[in-house]
């Protein structure tokens, strides 16, 4: 357990997880962020699926000749989680499409700049109104 490779599947899962997480944090492009998010979720699926493996176990299909089976439950759980992941990506992409329609860009910086320009415009409009009253 303590030698470095150890349970190498965990290392793979954690590497993917952190890679996905890093993409989410570092990228400014919304589509790339979603890719990172999908990677992040998928790494958790791998973590789950690999923990169902029982050493020397067979695929969980009943057969009198087999004594040890792998645990099928994590696989079933992940089937549900995959559906959730697909739905998340779909909703995310749909939002990106709408954002592109509304802002003409999918870059976080552009969107922020557009929002700020809008809010300063509306507040200067407000102060103009106040001035007009006085």
């Amino acid at each position, binding site marked *: 357990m303590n030698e470095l490779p150890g349970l190498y599947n965990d290392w793979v899962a954690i590497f993917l997880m952190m890679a996905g*997480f890093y993409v*989410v944090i570092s990228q400014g492009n*919304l589509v790339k*962020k979603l890719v990172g*998010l999908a990677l*992040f*979720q998928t790494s*958790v699926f791998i*973590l*789950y699926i690999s*923990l169902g493996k029982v050493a020397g176990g067979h695929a969980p299909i009943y057969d009198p000749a087999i004594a040890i089976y792998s645990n099928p439950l*994590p696989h079933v*759980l992940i089937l*549900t*989680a995959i559906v*959730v992941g697909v*739905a*998340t990506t779909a*909703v*995310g992409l749909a*939002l*990106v499409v*709408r*954002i592109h329609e*509304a*802002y003409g860009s999918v870059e976080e910086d552009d*969107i922020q700049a557009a*929002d700020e320009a809008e809010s300063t415009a509306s507040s200067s409009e*407000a102060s103009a109104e106040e001035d007009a*009253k006085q």
Partner: protein
Amino acid sequence: MTLIDHLPVLAVIVPLLAAPLCVLIDRARPAWLIALAASWLSFGAAILLLLQVTQSGTISYHLGGWPPPWGIEYRIDLLSAYVLLIVTAIAAVVMVFAWHSVESEIPSERIARFYAALLLAFAGLAGITTTGDAFNVFVFLEISSLASYAIISMGRDRRALNAAFQYLMMGTIGATFILIGIGFLYMMTGTLNMQDLAALLPEVSDTRTVRAGFAFLTVGIGLKLALFPLHLWLPNAYAYAPSTVTAFLAATATKVAVYALLRVLLDVFGVEFSLQAMPLNLILMVLGLVGIVSASLVAVFQDDIKRMLAYSSVAQIGYMVLGIGLANTTGVTAAILHVFNHALMKGALFLALGAIAYRLGTATLRDFAGLGRRMPWTMAAIVIGGLSLIGVPPTAGFISKWYLVLGTLEQGLWPVTLLVLFGSLLALIYVWKLVEAAYFKPAPANAPAVAEAPLSMLIPVWLLVGANVYFGIHTDISVGVASQAATQLMGAGG
């Protein structure tokens, strides 16, 4: 089995099935009627459940007849019945309010699908409170979250889209953290049933896997809860979502996350592990206090009233988390009580804001000038809701603040008591800003003529305002159930 035996699942499944029905019919009015009927049916089920639980104790419902720990168990104890009642009550009241508000804010061809998504969000939240299965919590959480991303993005302002996207990012990371945490627990115990987990965890609690799972779960729920440093998604999401959605989510979504936190920390892991072996009590207390003070300060400087109240929500979540962090029965009672009372006050306030937005189109501080004369009933509702937010007797807000202060004094933490009172003072400032604008400033000369909100909006608002006053005076029900639930939780672990 009669219908009564199936109540636990009915509260969840009625809105869940009503949602696709709305999509199939795809016409605004019938979809609204279906949503209304589903939410009131669910509310009825929740009332019956609470009665049943107070009389005959915890209900365990085996989904599909499969006994736990193999099958999925729906487990209704006092805490879940109590939170379920809040969620369904708010949903029922909000649905009455929704018709006019939604009609004015959402394009008519999307209304039916909007109700479908709202019902899904509601079903998910109800599901989290009823289920006794850890993986089921994740699934329901994602059902409600995905639906809420969709309905938040339907706000009129294009910034709603960006707010929804940010929420989607943070919400998904939170939910995935919860999934990882559940996976670690499953790795160590081989079970997903919460009661089973609670029984098996103490044996293996001294391993790194369980501690890591604990950390993942806490951070994941913290993201959903909008616990102080993880709250960044909340103000924008609440500010730009349609009024109905803001009122619904503000009064239910974070409350259900508090429920999940209570359930996981105190029930699954047990008080001893969560709040004594791990230093979480201190962490929660500090984060709660920082959240109270900083979010209240930010709220004071907001011009958009929806944003102001959203920041105030972050502060109120601080009170609840602080209550849990106190790690005594009074503190936990205060947290549960504040879940209830905050749902009432924020529900009332956001609904009243929705009525103002319906008449004026926006709700910034400038729009409030002179509104006390022009929309007297709506403004009066905001004032009473605001008093409850500050914690003035005889409103509901006072009761939960009172228990929180008692809890801090019980632990001998008087500096914390002072900070709690300071937070109330800040609430006084931002509520005063509203009152000042509405009653002491003349309406601008070019202000559009404004009529009082329609009755279908005023009645839900005043129902919640009435509840704020009622539960501030008659505390038997709210305090009674909350303190019993807190005793159950604290007893289960210690």
